């Protein structure tokens, strides 16, 4: 997969808007940390995170923060 093409064309398939992404972000991250299928629970989230650099970075941060607290690091 070419990163340049991803940046230009985004992910295929339906995706959430930035507002919907923010509304679902906390639930999505907790599902990920608990090992649940977060993508099945929040359809369209993965596509948005791949297509939207800003929301993608904030997702990475929240995941790192919450996962770090879980493992006590």
């Amino acid at each position: 997969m070419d990163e340049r093409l991803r940046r230009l064309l985004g992910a295929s398939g339906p995706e959430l808007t930035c507002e919907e992404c923010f509304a679902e972000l906390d639930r999505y991250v907790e599902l990920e940390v608990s090992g649940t299928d977060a993508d099945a629970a929040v359809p369209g989230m993965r596509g948005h995170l791949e297509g939207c650099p800003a929301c993608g970075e904030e997702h990475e941060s929240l995941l790192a923060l919450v996962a770090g607290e879980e493992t006590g690091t």
Partner: protein
Amino acid sequence: MRTPAPATVAPVAPAVSLDLESRAWIEALGDQGAARDDAIARLHALLLRAARFEVGRRRPTLPHLRGNELDDIALEAADDALVSVLARLEDFEGRSRFSTWAYKFALLEAAVKLRKRSWQGREIPLEPESWSLFADRGSSPEDDAEQSELLREIREATESVLTPHQRRVLVAIALNGVPIDVLAERLGSTRGALYKTLHDARQKLRAHLAARGLAIDLPEGGKRHG
């Protein structure tokens, strides 16, 4: 004894029950006097922790910012996030822990401030000055040929099928790496509105490529591994 909730509660009361910690937060923040002040101080500390976490993550990419400036940004982000969280307490439905829900406001505020700060005083490249650089890097020769053709088609399509606004937004964000929040500030727009423009532009490009029989080898929106 706690005062019962007024009879005119919001019609869409969440069916989800809160975990003990989240319930304690909501009750303390809905309290009065010293108890509420104490809860707000603890909430601010929680938000400041998240804001500092974000600053710490981005610090390596911000070598020109001094430590005290980064501290100030973290504090401002926590202050702004506190206002947002308190204004939106009723939106909290207990679908995650309260702390996770609150963190996202602080991370957002800190990330947006740091993106804007790192682009402060810089000109926003709205012209496709990096197409050539973009198209010249490749991995293997076969890949190169296919990718180059695809990139050439995309380049032409940005000129022929996109509106000027779609083209500007696509070029700035996807090609020149301008953060969407920075572009939104310069254009007097919002992240959500610009992303919609970007999404529409991408859909047009995809449709154009498909009509020309060009396969777009991007995985479906499923989970990526490694």
